[in-house]
């Protein structure tokens, strides 16, 4: 092998490495350093005063930060749990030969593709206290109206997220279901297993690796949600829907404390890092287990 050949992979990698280095890795390092400063947007980073871990300690004891963290966790875990149950349930229900399946899947992708800003705008209209679709319908039925974006703001935000992202889980679990070994299901049917038994003992365990990856991907994405909530409630009323991403952006732009915002970003990053690590470990374990189940099922048949 001559030297030109040895350089080839680096030539292929070079543009990606340069771009990600300049616009991802370097900024992340810059942020870690910035989180140690008392820094406002009108200063350049050299002028900012070095304060050590002060920003982290302030945040650690800041009740507003705690509330924001709690809201983020509730939003992410409750939302994704509902999406998982609905998405997997629908996939199990609709896993059959249907004529319009392709069209149906097309319809289901639509919410995911539309801009979060637009999703927020549609739902803000539907949740509107007087003009909105929901309250009008309730009124027409003679029921009491609901204060969607007031008292129930967090619930409303979760509903919008469930609307947008359940299809993601549905489509991936459907793909997983349809790639299951037919022989195992056939064998179970011949042995007289009921539909429920098939689901609980064969389909769900075999789907588990995909489900875990999908669920964790969704969870990581749920921590990135910002625009929908920004347009729907702007984090209010009070702090009831102010998720971390929104609080970071407000700390940076409204309160003009870049150092604190950077420290908060770092906390969020650590949280996501833990989730990613969990995803890898779990999917590895599940893969091994599923292979064992699959092998056993195929042996039986």
């Amino acid at each position: 092998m001559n030297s030109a050949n040895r350089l080839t992979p680096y030539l292929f990698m070079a543009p990606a490495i340069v771009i990600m280095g300049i616009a991802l890795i370097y900024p992340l390092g810059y942020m870690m350093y910035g989180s140690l400063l008392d820094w406002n947007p009108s200063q350049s980073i050299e002028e900012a005063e070095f304060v050590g871990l002060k920003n982290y300690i302030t945040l650690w004891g800041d009740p507003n930060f705690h509330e924001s963290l709690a809201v983020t966790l509730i939003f992410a875990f409750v939302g994704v749990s509902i999406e998982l149950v609905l998405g997997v349930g629908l996939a199990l229900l609709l896993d059959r030969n249907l004529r319009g399946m392709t069209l149906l899947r097309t319809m289901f992708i639509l919410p995911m593709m539309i801009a979060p800003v637009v999703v927020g705008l549609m739902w803000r209209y539907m949740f509107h206290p007087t003009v909105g679709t929901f309250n009008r319908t309730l009124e027409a039925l003679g029921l009491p109206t609901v204060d969607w974006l007031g008292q129930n703001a967090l619930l409303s935000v979760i509903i919008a997220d469930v609307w947008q992202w359940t299809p993601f889980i549905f489509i991936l679990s459907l793909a997983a279901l349809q790639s299951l070994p037919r022989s195992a299901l056939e064998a179970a049917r011949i042995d007289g297993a009921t539909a429920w038994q098939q689901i609980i003992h064969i389909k769900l365990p075999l789907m588990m690796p995909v489900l875990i990856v999908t669920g964790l991907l969704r969870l990581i994405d749920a921590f990135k949600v910002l625009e929908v909530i920004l347009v729907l409630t702007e984090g209010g009323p009070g702090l009831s829907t102010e998720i971390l991403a929104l609080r970071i952006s407000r700390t940076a732009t409204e309160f003009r404390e870049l150092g604190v915002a950077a420290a908060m970003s770092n906390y969020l990053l650590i949280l996501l890092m833990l989730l990613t690590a969990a995803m890898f470990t779990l999917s590895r374990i599940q893969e091994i287990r599923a292979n064992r189940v699959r092998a056993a099922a195929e042996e039986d048949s």
Partner: protein
Amino acid sequence: MATAPVQRTNPAFYALLIALVFMSVGPVALMFINSFKLDVDIISGTSGLIFMPTIQNYETALCDILPYELDHLDFCSLKFGEAFINSLIIALISTALTLIIGCMAAYALVRFKFMGRDTASFTTLMVRMVPPAVLLVPVFGLWNNEFCIGRSTMFGEFWRDTFGGRGDLCLAGTYGGIILVYVAMNLPFVIWILQSFIVQVPRSLEEAARVDGAGPFRVFFLVVLPLIKPGLAAAAIFTFRIAWNEYLLASALSDRDTRTVPILIVNNMSEFNVEWGVIMATGMLLAIPPILFTLFASRQIITGMTAGAVKG
């Protein structure tokens, strides 16, 4: 699956299907209908479907690029047309760049063994989960203060003499600045998704081309790329979608001339008196490209989604 018998389906099942379709498409349809209503009709809301459709909202939204004067509007305050063009430029260029750079990197990661490959692969995976909000502070700081060409340097002086302006030349506020962030942000995902497509390309084809005397770049562009077209299509749609829909970083980096559509919509939403009709029209215009993708490329989207997630 062709062997499985067609099951008997009861009417309740079809009712469920219709309800599901209604739920997923309903909100979009509602926005579509409302974008053709005057605000009076939206607010009075006597009935959902009986109204005089009007394109006035679209005219108001697009007033800065319409060739004719509008009667109902004295002053064109909403520069939607301009923002739409900005969005198009930014999304298209960043998608093209991300794809070219991303598929080269993915190819190297799949086909070559080299020092640092595992590190590169692992780093790509890890940065994939970085949310835009985390990049907000550093990117704002860097793009405004560090990534600048000083006004006293030769190029800076030349630029100032030719195009005018004061102070240093910075990345913030330019198309290039926003495109750079978007390319970097989308690269990990594109590399990840394309890897699973490149693995499927039979090695024998590449080797045959190499025996015929083609260099690695020729092999890549003439043999591998045509074979992974479905993967490229999927990656392109996802990249375009993010660049087209993103709000936070664009709002931090753009100025009056480089504003994109999401910024414009958010700014109009936070005003005290929301003009629902016009807002819905702008939302509808922003949603057109994603809707077109959904209708015409749903298969690629699903392939891409499954490739991106299932290969854990």
